[in-house]
């Protein structure tokens, strides 16, 4: 039985060499929910995610990143990035069990096979990444993320390089299999935020704005009128020069 995932609060501002990257801001991630962080390129979305992940050594973050259960986040997160980051010299099974290998832990090949089965990759276990399509590679990356079995999942534009159909498939898979975990999904795609987000937050030069997500469980159907309308509103909001009173 997995322990209940924590809620996260990120409160503070970030600078690189004295120049502000973002903030002051306060971002809350609800426990067991998907929060989509939407925004144009260059406003610090990825920096924010990297700070939470604890892999940013160049940015100075002043503030706190806390979990609701008061425990440290280290070792409780899994990361999935825009590029699949598969190691070309390992086969699919090797890539999915990379975490255990790097920690010197026993590799649970039975679970790895189960997860790869769920991802529809049962026939590709021994293939190297270059023998897979872009969509298959991203599914392996999702399998590797699930294999880590962490309560907090950080997704950095994971599907932005995929074609529209594959992207929609990946969104379905991810939303289904990441259910019940605290997920931060950084994206620049309003459609993705409208489909995936239990909560949607827009980060712009002026700060964070909460936006009401469309109704219905995630992943919301691509053709759902309310989801499409929300997508339109989000895009309008992204294009607005300053955060105006766009009704949501």
């Amino acid at each position, binding site marked *: 039985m997995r322990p209940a995932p924590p809620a996260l609060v990120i409160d503070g501002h970030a600078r690189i060499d004295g120049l502000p990257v973002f903030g002051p801001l306060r971002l809350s991630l609800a426990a067991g929910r998907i929060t989509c962080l939407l925004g144009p390129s260059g406003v610090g979305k990825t920096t924010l995610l990297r700070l939470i992940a604890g*892999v940013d050594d160049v940015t100075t973050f002043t503030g706190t990143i806390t979990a609701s259960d008061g425990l440290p986040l*280290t070792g409780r997160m899994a*990361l999935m990035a825009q590029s699949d980051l598969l190691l070309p010299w390992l086969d699919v099974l090797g890539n999915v069990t990379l975490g255990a290998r790097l920690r010197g832990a026993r590799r649970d090949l039975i679970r790895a096979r189960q997860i790869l089965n769920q991802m529809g990759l049962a026939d590709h276990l021994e293939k190297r990444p270059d023998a897979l399509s872009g969509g298959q590679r991203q599914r392996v990356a999702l399998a590797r993320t699930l294999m*880590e079995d962490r309560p907090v999942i950080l997704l950095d534009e994971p599907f932005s390089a995929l074609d529209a159909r594959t992207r929609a498939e990946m969104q379905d898979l991810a939303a289904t299999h990441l259910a019940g975990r605290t997920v931060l999904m950084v994206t620049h795609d309003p459609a993705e935020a409208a489909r995936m987000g239990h909560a949607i937050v827009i980060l712009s030069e002026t700060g964070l704005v909460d936006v009401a997500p469309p109704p219905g469980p995630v992943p919301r159907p691509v053709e759902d009128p309310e989801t499409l309308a929300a997508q339109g509103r989000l895009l309008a909001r992204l294009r607005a020069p300053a955060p105006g009173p766009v009704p949501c």
Partner: protein
Amino acid sequence: MLTRLVSLTAVTALAVMLWQALVTLAELPPFILPGPLRVAETLWASRALIAHHATITAAEVLIGLALGALLGGLSAIGLASSPMSRRLIRPMMVFSQAIPVFALAPILTLWLGYGLWSKVAMALLIIYFPVTSAFFDALMRTPQPWLDLARVMGANPARLMWHIRVPAALPGFASGLRLAAVYAPIGAIIGEWVGASKGLGYLMLLANGRAKIDLMFAALIVLALLTLLLHAGVDRACRRWLDGAATR
């Protein structure tokens, strides 16, 4: 393959013709520059003698190359593993490169004797830096996203090195080895010039001293062929096992 063979034959034929033309037109006496035919005759007549000495040189070069690759590889991994070792050892390595290897040959002969090992040491010394340097640079250039992923996974540093950094750096190691294949014979020959009773370098000095310039050229040609063969072999091995690793 066939076109390569044809062009190789054409280049060789051209070089031999130029050589013969130079000898004929400049009316050079054989004790200054013997013609290709004369050298070929000597090569055939002294084949047993040359083969004997070539075997010795080849052994020196191969042992030096193997030890240099091993030591260089381990040094690069050691340097890449610890910033402390970088601060301590890198300046020493650079300083050691400021000493011409030629200048060390007599000392090595003094310490290791006239036999095989002083030449092995020379070959090793001359290739150590290129191998270490090429591999080390590649080890320090592991793509950052892989390092981030490993960090979030809680990788232990030694396992990160073994499972990600080393495999990703193998093409760099390969380019070091390709250089080494060309340099190692230089080291062995210098060693033989300084003091030896066997080897192609010794044979060349001996032939020169006795004004057997045709024998000297025959030995020189065999040496060049040996180096080409070694380079081709190392290149092939690198393609087979190292280059592909990071892209396969």
